[in-house]
């Protein structure tokens, strides 16, 4: 079974999606064609995908769905005549709770049906914004799961329900977790990631700027 991996991140090889893809392929235990949409022409990439039995899209969640560039690639894909090819999706979000990706998941099933591909499913991973910043030992659990996903896929051509279930364990944020996060915000410990990056870029003082405000500054 020939598979092509499509990296749907606008950051290409420089982001969390690439890290996800690398570990999925490592788990597959074989070399695998991988392309970044951001570096390709939509039309020729869409045509190339037709040469494979299976396509796995890996991407970040953008505004509750796929990044614009992923939708633009899908728009260039042809509807199949024979239902002998498969399509699967892996989506990772900064938001902690996987439920934030539920609209994307619903759409991926629909678009697979529209284009007449067998739908392999959607793997959702929440809380992934800082993956690229963290030392490998802190990502160990994530990497192991992604490798298991790749290995299972290579053996069966399917996504592992076990791995999907593991990622979706806290699908919605529990009331207690939301209250705890809200408490952290009050203590100033919440949103530490954003504050540290704002400070790093000397932009902390400007964090609430309203550059396109309807009122004139200072008035």
């Amino acid at each position, binding site marked *: 079974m020939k598979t092509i991996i499509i990296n749907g*991140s*606008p*950051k290409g090889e420089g*982001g969390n999606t690439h890290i996800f893809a690398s570990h999925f392929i490592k788990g597959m235990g074989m070399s695998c064609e991988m392309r970044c949409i951001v570096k390709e022409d939509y039309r020729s990439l869409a045509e190339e995908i037709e040469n494979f039995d299976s396509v796995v899209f890996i991407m*970040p969640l*953008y*505004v*509750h*769905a*796929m*990044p*614009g*560039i992923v*939708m*633009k690639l*899908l*728009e260039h894909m042809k509807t199949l005549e024979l239902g002998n090819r498969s399509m699967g999706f892996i989506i990772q979000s900064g*938001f*902690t*709770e996987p*439920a*934030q990706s539920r*609209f994307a998941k*619903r*759409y991926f099933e*629909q*678009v697979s049906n*529209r*284009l007449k591909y067998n739908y392999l499913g959607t793997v959702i991973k929440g809380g992934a914004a800082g993956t690229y910043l963290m030392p490998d030992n802190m990502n160990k659990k994530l990497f192991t799961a992604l490798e298991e996903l790749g290995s299972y896929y290579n053996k069966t051509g399917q996504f592992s329900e076990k791995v999907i279930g593991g990622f979706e364990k806290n699908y*919605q*944020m529990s*009331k207690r977790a*939301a*209250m705890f*996060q*809200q408490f952290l*915000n009050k203590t100033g410990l*919440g*949103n530490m990631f*954003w504050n540290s*990056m*704002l400070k*790093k*870029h000397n*932009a902390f003082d*400007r*964090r*609430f*700027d*309203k*550059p*396109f*405000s*309807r009122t004139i500054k200072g008035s």
Partner: protein
Amino acid sequence: MRTMIIREFGDYSSQDSYLYDLAQQPVKDCTGCWSCWWRTPGRCIHKDLNEFYKEYLKADKVTIFSKLSLGFVSGNLKTLFDRLIPMALPYIEYSTGESMHLPRYDKYPEIEVYYEGEFVNQDEELLYKDYLARVFYQFHISLNLVKPVSDYNGGC
């Protein structure tokens, strides 16, 4: 009342409305750099929407004429949504029981959407509407209506 029209099809316009024609002026894709949150707060590295942002925040109502694409919002409109993140703060709060970005501005326009194209089944229509509702909820914007363009009566 100040109004704005964003259109992907047709020739809808109004004398007093700011017009953004997505079919003629595709928006540059978000690069995922997060500059608008942590380097130049509120400003995107792309400048192509600077005038749009100003007009958008001045408007009381924005009418979007959305061309359905594979039963969903088109890639061009999705890119425009991706480029709305400078309108929000990176900060997240949890008072509703889920993660929600805080708004950057005090006031946003109300939105109405008219779409052109067919859904192949009810699930598609439901998802399109649920999805739009979710996007504008996340951006603290009220979405007043989502209807087929045949129901459009000139915005009166």
